[in-house]
């Protein structure tokens, strides 16, 4: 498949996962990501893979753990309330140093919330979610093509660093249709000598475990993991810059909010306001360095988010609070209009149009 095909975001990511070598998917129905499970149910048996509808999100993530421990690519997908349930398992994946891909097609929260697009799981995804010292690779697509690209990337980075990765989408990304190029060429393979495949398949015994009652040992394990996180922070930060060369105002936005922002930036530029955007593609590792550098010449920042203001904390930290950071947000499943973003740009420009 080297030609572009028109696909829905949720289905495109499912197909990309299969093409990336994921033959084990475990799901549980929840809006707005159920198309992923439906696509997998139809497709997996045809490619000799496993689709299983688990009895709960909790079981689904633990089935992922079982597959990941044997060294194979596994995936589960859900939406916000379901990700809360999976958070125990995600913590275990991190503690056991297992790679896997978790997809969160976010909806409004907290609690049962709503089913419309949201980005209110930013904290949950980037700051932990589950218990303990750990991080996830967090990838935020803003197009159906990126749903595909970042699915491949998610599996790759998860295996490279032996840590779980999360595709943090929103309902819009999951539901919209766009032409996509699916083929991503060769899949890189990583050492899996740690996998529990039976002692007949490797030297000695392999044990996948996150428990140590010896605090000195557990501290060493945590440092070992964070050493790898550091390498990821140095080598695998992804972002896109839009009209940042002469920008005096910098918008920071991801996912659907970045697309609305782009529209607003174009309108502001037509008015002569020098505004640009830094779009984090990896929410963790967060593009701190490029934001810090932008703070040297930008007079203000605007964090555009579909939540009550979560990423804004990381923007402030990245620029060390050296410039004002405005928040342009909608929540509960509402999406801001380009005009609302434009109004924030004008405000950040000192009220000058």
């Amino acid at each position, binding site marked *: 498949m080297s030609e572009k095909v028109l696909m829905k975001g949720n289905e495109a990511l499912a197909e990309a996962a299969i093409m990336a070598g994921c033959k*084990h998917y*475990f799901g549980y129905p929840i809006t707005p990501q159920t198309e992923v499970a439906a696509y997998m149910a139809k497709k997996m048996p045809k490619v000799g893979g*496993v689709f*299983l509808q*688990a*009895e*709960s999100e*909790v*079981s*689904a993530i*633990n*089935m*992922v*753990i*079982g*597959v*990941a*421990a*044997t060294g*194979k690519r*596994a995936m589960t997908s859900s939406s916000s309330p379901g990700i809360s349930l999976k958070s*125990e*398992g995600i913590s*275990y994946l991190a503690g*056991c140093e297992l790679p896997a891909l978790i997809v969160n097609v976010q909806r409004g929260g907290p609690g049962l919330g709503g089913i419309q697009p949201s980005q209110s799981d930013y904290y949950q995804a980037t700051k932990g979610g589950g218990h303990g010292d750990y991080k996830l690779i967090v990838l935020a697509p803003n197009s159906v093509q990126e749903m595909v690209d970042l699915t491949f990337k998610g599996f790759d980075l998860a295996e490279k660093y032996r840590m779980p990765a999360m595709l943090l989408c929103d309902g819009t990304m999951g539901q919209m249709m766009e032409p996509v190029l699916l083929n991503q060429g060769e899949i890189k393979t990583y050492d899996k000598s740690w996998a*529990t*495949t*039976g*002692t*007949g*398949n490797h030297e000695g*015994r*392999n*044990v*996948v*475990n*996150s*428990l140590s009652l010896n605090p000195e040992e557990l501290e060493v394990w945590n440092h070992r993991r964070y050493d790898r996180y550091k390498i990821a922070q140095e080598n695998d930060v992804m972002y896109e810059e839009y009209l940042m060369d002469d920008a005096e105002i910098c918008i920071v936005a991801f996912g659907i909010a970045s697309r609305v922002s782009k529209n607003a930036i174009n309108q502001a530029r037509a008015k002569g306001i020098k505004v640009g955007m830094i779009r984090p593609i990896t929410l963790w590792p967060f593009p701190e360095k490029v934001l810090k550098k932008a703070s040297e010449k930008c007079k203000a920042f605007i964090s555009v988010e579909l939540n009550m203001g979560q990423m804004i904390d990381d923007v402030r930290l990245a620029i060390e609070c050296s410039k004002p950071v405005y928040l342009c947000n909608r929540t509960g499943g509402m999406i801001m209009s380009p005009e609302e973003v434009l109004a924030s740009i004008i405000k950040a420009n000192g009220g000058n149009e």
Partner: protein
Amino acid sequence: MEVFKKTNGLTDAPFHYCPGCTHGIIHRLVAEVLEELGVLDRSIAIASVGCSVFSYNYFNCDAIQAAHGRAPAVATGAKRSMPDNIVFTYQGDGDLAAIGTAETVHAAARNENITVIFVNNAIYGMTGGQMAPTSLPNQVTQTSPYGRDVTLVGYPIKVSEMLSQVEGATYIERVAVDNVKNIKNAKKAIKKAFQNQIDKKGFSLIEVLSTCPTNWGKSPKDSLLWLEENMKKNYPLGVFKDRTKGDE
């Protein structure tokens, strides 16, 4: 002349179990069965949370340590990924019959081709003797200090009886390890449960009535008597489901 020796199914790591606890016997039975069936080098043990958490140190095969109650789900993933490997869980009553009830029932309903060793000693051991889903009526524990009041906290869950009603399950048997005859029967049951998996017959669960002298506050000998006199009345031994009948 054959000399008694330790089974190769166990590592050399010393058990952390309390003196008189029957986990050691059950570990040994499972390990002997894996060795006798010649599947040690393709076995994957799923350790649970509770006293048996460290079973990953003892079974001489690969192992995955699962979260509390989740062992059957982890086993499902491992088995679906490696259908020719032998995947088994080793779980206590708190793990399997309280927090992991859903995982247990649904693994049975799917007839997952795994083996579950369910150790029922009617108490939470690792955390220091709290009431378990399988604690007997009026049983005194740390969290039922006046005895298990069934009008307030309900009745014990009879896992083997319950799973016998699950259509998908292949083999369900309850055994005990309180005397030599029962230990021999227990081994036979465990062997059948693993043979079922080798023969791809599906979900087998062996419930093993076990003792907890430390948290029962009894000597090892009195614990065996208590098992005999009290646990067996509530949890009768026997085969509760066998869909392999007539296969031989």
